[in-house]
């Protein structure tokens, strides 16, 4: 059973969002990292990139799969986790502690449309 963290919101595409002021901190869930297996590479955008909710902002690659990363919110990318360049396996070690990008949101209300922990847990069960 993968863990589902309580105080974050989730996209159906398995990204989690933690809100810190006007910044959305984004990563992928424990369910997603488990499904992928050992992660070998994370393709990330650049600081300063403008992004729209629903846009593909990168990809996570394992030996047997590669998954697009879809941004749950719109805004500007203000930080990219450079540790992942050399150590992509950090996501496997702790998916919730390992953020991938941080976005300054242009519309904070977009977060409300995302799933809460219970709804996300149910989504994973059904898959």
């Amino acid at each position, binding site marked *: 059973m993968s863990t589902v963290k309580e105080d974050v919101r989730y996209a159906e595409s398995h990204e989690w969002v933690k809100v810190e002021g006007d910044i959305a901190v984004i990563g992928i869930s424990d369910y997603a990292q488990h499904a992928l*297996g050992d992660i*070998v590479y994370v393709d990330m955008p650049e600081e300063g990139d403008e992004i729209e909710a629903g846009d593909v902002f990168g990809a996570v690659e*394992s030996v047997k799969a590669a998954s697009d990363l879809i941004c749950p919110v719109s805004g500007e990318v203000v930080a990219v986790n450079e540790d992942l360049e050399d150590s*992509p396996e950090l996501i496997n070690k702790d998916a919730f502690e390992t953020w991938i990008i941080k976005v300054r949101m242009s519309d904070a209300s977009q977060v409300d449309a995302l799933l809460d922990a219970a709804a996300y847990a149910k989504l994973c069960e059904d898959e």
Partner: protein
Amino acid sequence: MKEYDKLIFEISKPGRKGYQLPADKYGVDGMSAIPAGLMRGEAPELPEVSELDVVRHYTNLSNKNFGVDTGFYPLGSCTMKYNPKINEELASLPAFAGLHPLQDVKSVQGALQLYYELQQALSSLAGLKEFTLNPYAGAHGELTGLMVMRQYHKLRGDDKRTKVIVPDTAHGTNPASAMVAGLEVVEVKSRPNGSIDIEDLKPLLDDTVAGIMMTNPNTLGMFETEIMEIASLVHEAGGLLYYDGANLNPMLGKVRPGDMGFDIMHINLHKTFSTPHGGGGPGSGPVGVSERLVDLLPTPRVVKLDDGSFDVVYNGDESLGSVSTFFGNFGVMMKAYAYILSLGRDNIKNVGPMATLNANYIKESLRDLYKLPVEGPCKHEFVFDGLADKSTGVTTLNVAKRLLDFGFHAPTIYFPLLFHESLMIEPTETESLETLDEFIDVMRKVAIEARENPELVKEAPVTTAISHPDETGAAKNPILSYKAMKA
């Protein structure tokens, strides 16, 4: 036999040579006319070895490989049938091997005739008007066929048709080829038995659909019995039908794709027509089309003139363009044509039935120990969803690796994606009953081992030269060259 583990670079010794070229008698120093700024700075670090070094090295490498000539290769969707040796002999005849592709057509009438006759033979077998032999491989044929589809709509002045429907059971090259051809992929769902769900198809068919890309039998080896209805629905919606010829083998002697309503298809000569897989190529992926699409085919095209001679056409107003530099993999085509001629009009009709018989025999002989998700007669291949008894945690991957210990190449694993533990088996028609029985015995043995001694199966392979390579490390830190390895 001792194990051989050297790279060619590691047996290099400065000054060694493996070649002898003629002396330079032209009396001209051509390179002195080339400015130094255009010349290479440092010499390439390439191996310096003798001819014997080369021969021993690659001979030893070949001993680390497994081919159809070594043993049974039941890879589903690959059609690993025997590669007749007469094909190899004929393909290397100097009268063909030394021909430059731009020679005067009058001087290559034999080659053009062979090319043309192969086109005609494939047309007859496929039930389609005309073939292009330009595409170099199956995926390349798919791309070409989809380009035909788009060109057709373009010439009709229809810009709206940007989508192609692909079943969720399709081989990965199908949606990938669609993407390269600039089409959006729309998936149609399959029923639990793997057939296209017509009720899911109907709402997808509108005037934005260029066509459907599918195969029959499908990737589970089951015949799509509603093909006529599918064809009629797609045609009514203004779309074209594309046939992925990877599964053509069971159809030889029984059904022609053109008769099922397909407008375009590709054939894998290296599957259905016995040309060798070569460790991953070269293949050949001819594309056939119905009459109304003939002028859209890529160039160059080989045609027959009224006087019976053959010519090459390099341009066509309606042609989609070109997908190859010259004619395609001519050497491969020679082998396929020799194969067709060796079977002839009567014996080629046995290919499909024999392939189907062999597949069904294996299926029925193993269904008690492996999980058969779909009932009913299959055609040339079928899928098990792993072991019937999964209680010990032995996966399809484990089973596949354990088969290597018994001297068999594993079947295709984890495809199609419809089942979690897919194991796809295609014996082909060239295997004897004894080989099939041997395979069945080993599969039974492994299934029983999985129950009684699962650790052994999970550890497999144990008798091969290497085992459990670190694929994660290889993907995380790709080392693709000797230089990178030494760094």
